[in-house]
């Protein structure tokens, strides 16, 4: 009996203990000056929650938003990634982003392995509808017609007890999506602190949407702690990636107050750490206030230095925190060194009959690189696989592997994944022909002459060195874990531009006219054919009383004259 009591007590204690210690929330802000007077700010809010998987514990959330955990409960997801971005990350001059996102909305999720193909189909649509409501984004446009399951480009980052293959993955991109305040406000509400407290308070719509590039992200994954996965961590990373144009702030010196319109008013009370990292690699400026700590990060052959600010400590000294860059020295013009891998994407061809989609990928590294290119082309842009060419200046390259699922009108998109090796210091051009097709008039979006978007291509690579590489390792939860994180290779994912094509349009104003005219032509055949098959030819006396039109007209005129006389 006594033993049982102890056991109950222990159990109770462990639950209470868990309640208080199983939630961790971290705020991080990474600031990096980019070339040509741009500043990149990257916010990452990480919530980790340890829960029991076996008893629907997902409904009893603390820090993590219940709406997110409910998604995981209802739709059997293992991992979920959402990004909503606007603008273009210029990889060539800005280097690799910490987190790459295609323009517009992008969504992909891994489902649990007990689901069947049909279940996943259903859950995926329901999930996207739920997200549509949750984030006020047009994820309700996600259908079978724009969903693919890429085989090579994506790998689960969760540690789930059963390894998942690509059949449990669903990916979609909505390049037409315009991201704005209505997405930011619900996004903020998913965080444990109110939008007035902590790093979130910097995210004012007015200042965010005047940036050159902005991207909101939500990345949620499972991490199993034990073999059976009865005990797991649900980790949610909410990120904001911004690129500010310093020209708008009058000069190259900047501060948090200038970029966001206000200083930092403290930390989120729930956060266990709130840190700002300022990249000071090869930079010649003074920082106010002085950083208390400088981190030297050696990673895969490159060295970078970060000034670290612990906002928890700073907040004890002053109420409003501002970090400013002053006394910038302009003695040298920085040499732009492009990252080892970057890409451009464009359309070729004139007219609206057929064209060519070209991806130009540059490898400026001294060794050859293996890359995977993922194309997700909508059904209304039929592509011809036999025209796929990978050209370099010295000839053609044969892709090492091609995965292709042809699209079907109004059913599924064209999915193409190419694996190839780019030789060192080479520019390759991957081109494929497509046709412009004619849609039904009700299928054109409003403002049809604006054109239709083709989602960005995704380029994935394992880089052998971390030059210019800023992302955190895949398994890492915090950005701080990327310091000194040397690995055998570094996983890189970059997005190209989305394309806009102008499909030929019908005249939207005349469906009735067209229907009438075409039916008239059909009737032109019907009339005579009906006549000649249902009647017989006979000789008939000409009707003498029948007069020609002119004669009748003459008679009428004469009669009138006679009358008037």
């Amino acid at each position, binding site marked *: 009996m006594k033993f049982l009591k102890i056991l109950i007590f222990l159990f109770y204690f462990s639950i209470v203990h868990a309640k208080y210690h199983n939630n961790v929330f971290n705020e991080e802000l990474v600031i990096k000056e980019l070339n040509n007077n741009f500043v990149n700010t990257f916010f990452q809010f990480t919530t980790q929650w340890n829960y029991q998987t076996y008893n629907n514990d997902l409904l009893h959330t603390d820090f993590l938003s219940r709406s997110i955990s409910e998604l995981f409960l209802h739709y059997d997801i293992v991992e979920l990634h959402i990004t909503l971005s606007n603008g273009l990350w210029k990889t060539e001059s800005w280097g690799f982003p910490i987190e790459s996102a295609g323009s517009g909305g992008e969504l992909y999720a891994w489902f649990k392995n007990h689901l069947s193909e049909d279940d996943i189909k259903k859950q995926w649509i329901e999930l996207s509808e739920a997200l549509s409501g949750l984030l006020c984004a047009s994820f309700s446009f996600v259908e079978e017609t724009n969903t693919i399951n890429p085989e090579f480009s994506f790998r689960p980052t969760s540690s789930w007890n059963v390894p998942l293959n690509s059949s449990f993955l669903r990916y979609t991109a909505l390049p037409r999506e315009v991201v704005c305040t209505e997405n930011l406000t619900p996004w903020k509400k998913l965080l444990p602190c109110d939008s007035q407290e902590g790093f979130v308070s910097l995210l004012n719509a007015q200042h965010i949407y005047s940036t050159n590039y902005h991207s909101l992200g939500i990345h949620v994954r499972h991490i199993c702690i034990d073999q059976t996965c009865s005990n797991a961590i649900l980790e949610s990373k909410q990120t904001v990636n911004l690129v500010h144009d310093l020209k708008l702030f009058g000069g190259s010196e900047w501060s948090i107050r200038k970029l966001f319109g206000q200083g930092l008013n403290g930390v989120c009370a729930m956060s266990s750490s709130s840190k700002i990292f300022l990249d000071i690699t090869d930079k010649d400026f003074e920082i106010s206030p002085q950083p208390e700590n400088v981190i030297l990060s050696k990673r895969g052959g490159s060295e970078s230095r970060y000034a670290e600010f612990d906002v928890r400590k700073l907040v004890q000294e002053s109420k409003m925190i501002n970090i400013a860059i002053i006394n910038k020295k302009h003695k040298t013009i920085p040499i732009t060194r492009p990252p080892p891998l970057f890409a451009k994407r464009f359309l070729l061809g004139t007219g609206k*009959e057929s064209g060519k989609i070209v991806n130009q990928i540059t490898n400026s590294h001294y060794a050859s690189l293996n890359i995977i290119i993922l194309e997700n082309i909508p059904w209304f842009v039929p592509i011809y*696989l036999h025209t796929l060419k990978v050209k370099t200046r010295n000839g053609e390259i044969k892709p090492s592997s091609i995965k292709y*699922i*042809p699209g079907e*009108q109004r059913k599924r998109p064209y999915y193409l994944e190419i694996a190839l090796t780019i030789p060192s210091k080479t520019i390759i051009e991957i081109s494929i022909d497509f046709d412009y097709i004619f849609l039904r008039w009700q299928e054109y979006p409003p403002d049809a002459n604006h054109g239709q978007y083709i989602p960005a291509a995704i380029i994935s690579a394992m880089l052998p060195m971390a030059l210019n590489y800023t992302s955190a390792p895949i398994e890492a939860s915090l950005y701080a874990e990327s310091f000194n994180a040397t690995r055998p290779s570094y996983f890189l994912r970059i997005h190209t531009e989305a394309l806009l094509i102008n499909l030929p349009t019908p005249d939207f104003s005349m469906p009735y006219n067209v229907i009438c005219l075409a039916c008239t032509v*059909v009737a032109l055949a019907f009339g005579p054919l009906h006549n000649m098959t249902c009647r017989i030819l006979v000789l008939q006396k000409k009707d003498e009383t029948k007069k020609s039109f002119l004669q009748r007209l003459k008679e009428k005129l004469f009669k009138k004259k006679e009358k008037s006389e």
Partner: protein
Amino acid sequence: MNKKLLYSLLISGAIRYFISISKYSRSIENHVEISTPLNSFKRLKEGVFLYDNGIDPYDGDIFHESPFILIAANFLLKNFGEFISLILIIIDLLSAVFIYYGSKSISKRNYERQQLEVSTYAKGTEEIQFSKSDIDNIPFICAFAYLFNPYSILNCVGQTTTVWSNFLLSVVIYSMSKNMKFICLLALAFETQKNFYPFVLIVPIALAFSENDKSKNLKRIITVVTFASIFGLLNYIAFTYMGNWKFLDSTFGFIIHCRDLTPNIGLFWYFFTEMFDHFRELFLYTFQLNTTILYLFPLTFTFKESPEFLLTILLSLVTIFSSYPCIGAIAFYMSLIPLWKRCSPFMSHNFIVIATFIVTSILGPTVYHLWMYANSANANFYFGVTLVFCTSQIFLLTDLCFAYLKRKFCLTNGVTFDKTMKLSLE
């Protein structure tokens, strides 16, 4: 083979060859009037490429040819890839040869039929009777009309698969006129598998095969049943080869549902682009009925004494009203019209028809270019031109039918009659 035909073959072959090696061949190949989603060479290449790489070409949206064309093209493109345009030219010339010999025996049969009835003919109708020299003249005109028709030349240069279907149709006509039943039905089954609509030709063929038989109806039923079983067998062979039935939806389904709305010279594309969604099915099936069986029985009863004429009319009807018409198919039925040379005195719209053919053939590509490349016209312009083009074809067709009926009437009643009298339908 006579010398005139040989020279025509050589000259028209040379024309086809020189255009196909010129720099214009590529742009000819991409013209919507020539290449439709159903017959374009680019799509054929894509289908063969996918098939070669282990992807089911019928899974996608690009390839809509029959599996037999896929197999044949796979073999040809792999082994004779460089000579494909030459092979197509030879096939096109062969079609002309088949048309020549087919129309020769049709003319002969027409003449023989006339000989049986000539005693009942009125005096002074020699002008509109088939003469003995027609047996030599008409076939040459038919072959000439095929060889030098700009439509068929462009079709051949465009390397469309309509070259194949024209060949199959010419075989159908040749074997029908020579009473080679099995070959005729086999060729028709192949052609039906490719284009679907030509199945209506089984009616004139059944009539032709039962002409000198005692138990006509039995014979006709046997012909139709044989055709159906050959057709079914072909599909089954295709199924065993492809491993699934997807090709049925990708070929017949694609034709019947008119899924691709790319502009072409027919009536379907703009009509179904602008169609309201809830009426789509209704109009789709109405149009398809109009193309296939609406006129089939009335015309059969009217022209049953001349299956060859019925065949000409049905073939032109299904070409005009098919969902993806192309000028290659038009060239084929036009080459059969000279068979009815003796009807020409009664054809009254010749000038209008020829003039609109010329005008629309020039105007069509022009406004298409303005729409697609110069951005200074819109879809309505091209639609207008295709509408007029269809109308002129319909005029040609109905005019020919009327001329046939009038000639038949005049043969027994005399060509000249009282000025106070008039021929009319009653």
